[in-house]
C-alpha cells in the first residue's frame, strides 16, 4: 500500500518531475516566505555542520598536539603570568637559569626529563635575504625526546655530535621566508654574524599548545645558543619537563613552584616571576571554549530549524488554500487522500531538503575556511551530517503534516461545483 502510494505520488522520475514542477511553481508565488523558510533550514544545517566539523577538527588537532609533545608535559616559562592557562608571559624577563633546571631535575623525584630552552629573535640572513624578527630557539638534545619534530627526512635532527656545533633546524615558515624555494638543507644561514648550517627542515606543525607558532622557529643546539647568541650564558626562559606519570603531574607542579619561589627569593604575597603550565590545562580550556561554541551552535541550529518549520508550515497552508481547485481536480481524476497528503508532504520536504543541501554545501565550505584560517585540520563530522539530514527531514515532515491534513479534508464536490 505504502509502496504503491510512493509510486503513485511522484517518486517516479516522470511524476517527480511533474510534482516538483508544481512545487517550484507554487512556491514561486510565495517568494518571500519560501526564501525565509529555506534560509532557516540553510542556517540550521550550516551551523550544525560547521560546529560539528570544527569541533571534530579541534579534537583531532588537540590529539595531534598532545601526541607531538609527551603526554605528561609541564612547561616553566619565565615572566609574570598574563592569564590563567596562557603561556604568553606578561613580561619576557630572563630569570630562569640552567641551575634552576638542574635543581628541578635533581630535587624532584617526579621528573623524568628536563629540557631547558631559550628563545630570542634575531635578524637571520641567507645570501641576500635577511628576515628580521626570526625566533631562534636553543634546545638541548633532550628536547627531541620530549617533542616529535616533523622532520622532512632528507636531513638529520641534532645528534650528540651537534651539541656545540653551529647547526640549525628550520621550521616550515621560517624556511619558506628565508630560502624562497631553495632547499634549506646543507645551506648556511647567518645569525648574529655566525654561520649556521641547516641540517634539517621541518614540515608545518601549525600553532601548537605552547602558544607559539612553531613553524616560524629556527632551532639551534642550546650550548651553541648560549655561547654564540647570548651574553648571559646561564640564562634561559623555558624549561620543558616530563613527569614520570600522569598522577605525578599535580605534585610535580606544586614542587616546581615551591622550589623556584625559594630559589628566586620570592616572599609570601609576592607574585611569581615564572609560570608553570600543564598542557592539559590549556587543552581543557580549549575544550571548554569549544563546548560553549558547540552549545551555541546547537541552539542556533535548533532555533533556525524551528523558525523554518513554522515558515514552511505557513507557506504550505497558504498553498493548500490557493490550490483548492487543483486538489479537487486531482481528486476527481483519481487521486486518493493519501496521494494528496503525500504530495504536500513531498513539497514540504522538498523545501526543507533544498535548504539542507544548500546548508550542507555552505557549511562544509565554511569549515574549510575556518580550518584554513585557524590552521587546524579539515574534518567532516559524520554524526553532524547525519543529524542535520535527519533534522531537515523531520522539519519537512513536521511542517507538512498539518497542511496535508487540511488538503485531505477538501472535498472535490464542493470545489468543482459548476
Amino acid at each position, binding site marked *: 500500500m505504502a509502496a*504503491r502510494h510512493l*509510486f*503513485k*505520488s*511522484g517518486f*517516479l522520475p*516522470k*511524476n517527480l518531475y*511533474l510534482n516538483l*514542477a*508544481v512545487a517550484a*511553481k*507554487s512556491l514561486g508565488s510565495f517568494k518571500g516566505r519560501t526564501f525565509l523558510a529555506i534560509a532557516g533550514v540553510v542556517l540550521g544545517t550550516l551551523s550544525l555542520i560547521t560546529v560539528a566539523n570544527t569541533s571534530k577538527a579541534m579534537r583531532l588537532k588537540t590529539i595531534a598536539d598532545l601526541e607531538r609533545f609527551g603526554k605528561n608535559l609541564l612547561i616553566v616559562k619565565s615572566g609574570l603570568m598574563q592569564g590563567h592557562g596562557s603561556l604568553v608571559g606578561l613580561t619576557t624577563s630572563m630569570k630562569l637559569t640552567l641551575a634552576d633546571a638542574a635543581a628541578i631535575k635533581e630535587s624532584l623525584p617526579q621528573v623524568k626529563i628536563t629540557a631547558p630552552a631559550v628563545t630570542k629573535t634575531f635578524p637571520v640572513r641567507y645570501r641576500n635575504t635577511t628576515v628580521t624578527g626570526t625566533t631562534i630557539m636553543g634546545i638541548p638534545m633532550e628536547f627531541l625526546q620530549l617533542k616529535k619534530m616533523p622532520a622532512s627526512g632528507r636531513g638529520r635532527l641534532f645528534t650528540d655530535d651537534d651539541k656545540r656545533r653551529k647547526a640549525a633546524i628550520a621550521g616550515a615558515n621560517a624556511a619558506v621566508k628565508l630560502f624562497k624555494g631553495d632547499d634549506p638543507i646543507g645551506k648556511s644561514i647567518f645569525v648574529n654574524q655566525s654561520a649556521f648550517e641547516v641540517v634539517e627542515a621541518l614540515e608545518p606543525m601549525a600553532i601548537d599548545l605552547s602558544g607559539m607558532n612553531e613553524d616560524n622557529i629556527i632551532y639551534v643546539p642550546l650550548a651553541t645558543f648560549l655561547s654564540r647568541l647570548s651574553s648571559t650564558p646561564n640564562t634561559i626562559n623555558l624549561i620543558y619537563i616530563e613527569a614520570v606519570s600522569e598522577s605525578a603531574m599535580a605534585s610535580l607542579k606544586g614542587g616546581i613552584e615551591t622550589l623556584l619561589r625559594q630559589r628566586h627569593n620570592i616572599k609570601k604575597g609576592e607574585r611569581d616571576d615564572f609560570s608553570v603550565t600543564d598542557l592539559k590545562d590549556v587543552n581543557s580550556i580549549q575544550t571548554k571554549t569549544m563546548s560553549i561554541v558547540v552549545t551555541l551552535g546547537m541552539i542556533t541550529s535548533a532555533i533556525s530549524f524551528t523558525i523554518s518549520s513554522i515558515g514552511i508550515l505557513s507557506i504550505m497552508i497558504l498553498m493548500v488554500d490557493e490550490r483548492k*481547485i*487543483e486538489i*479537487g*481536480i*486531482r*481528486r*476527481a*481524476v*483519481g*487521486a*486518493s*487522500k*493519501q*496521494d494528496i497528503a503525500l504530495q504536500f508532504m513531498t513539497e514540504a520536504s522538498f523545501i526543507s531538503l533544498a535548504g539542507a543541501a544548500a546548508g550542507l554545501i555552505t557549511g562544509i565550505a565554511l569549515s574549510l575556511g575556518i580550518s584554513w584560517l585557524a590552521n587546524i585540520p579539515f574534518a567532516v563530522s559524520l554524526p553532524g551530517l547525519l543529524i542535520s539530514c535527519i533534522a531537515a527531514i523531520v522539519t519537512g515532515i513536521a511542517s507538512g503534516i498539518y497542511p496535508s491534513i487540511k488538503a485531505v479534508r477538501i472535498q*472535490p*464536490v464542493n470545489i*468543482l*461545483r*459548476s
Partner: protein
Amino acid sequence: MKLIELRHLRKQFIAGDVMVDALKDVSLTVERGAFTAIMGASGSGKTTLMNIIGCLDTPTSGTYILNGMDVSTMDDDQLSAVRNKTIGFVFQNFFLLHYATVLENVLLPTLYVDTLRHDLKDKAMEMLQIVGLKDRALFKPRQLSGGQQQRTAIARALINDPDLIICDEPTGQLDSNTASEIMKILTKLNEKGKTIIVVTHDANIAAYAGSTIVIKDGLIEGG
C-alpha cells in the same frame, strides 16, 4: 447492457438548519454506448446527480450500480480508484492546471494509476490528436482559447480509457460555434463506443444526444 443503474436515489443537503432534497427519488438506467443528455432548470439537481454518477459524491440513500459494481457502498479510496479507471470528467470551467503544459494536464490522471506504463507520453499525444491539439502539447492552458482548453480537458478525460465520460455543462463557457465543435468531438467519441452523459440547459446541445432525461425539483420527469 447496462453501464449505469440508479435505484431510488435520494440526496439531501443540510444548509444551515434547512434540509434540501436535491434528489428525491431518482431511478434510471444508462446503456453502455449511450449518449444521454440531462436537462433541467437551474437548481433542479443536475449537478448533484452528475456528482453521484461521477462517484464524486455518495447518495443519502438508494443504490448505484456502475459497470456491475455497487458503488453506493464504496469507501473514499475505492471511489477514487473507480473515478480513475472508469470515469472521465469534463467541466464547465475546464479545470486545468495552469502551471502545467497541455501534455502534462492530459497526463494528470496517469499519475494515480497503479500499473506502470512507459508509453504514456505517446498515449497522451494520441489523445491530443483525437481532439486536434497535437501541435499545442507544450502550450500552457492560458495560451489557449476556451474551446482548446475544453478539448484539452476531453483529452485528459480519455487518457485512462474510461467507459464513461460525464460532462457538466461542457459548453457553458463557449460560443455556439465552439460549442458545436466540442459536441462533434463528443459525438465522435460516442461512435467509437464511449458512453457519454452531458448535462445542459441548452436544447441545441441536448440535440446531439441520442436520448434526453429531464429533471425537475430533484425528480425525473415522466420517470
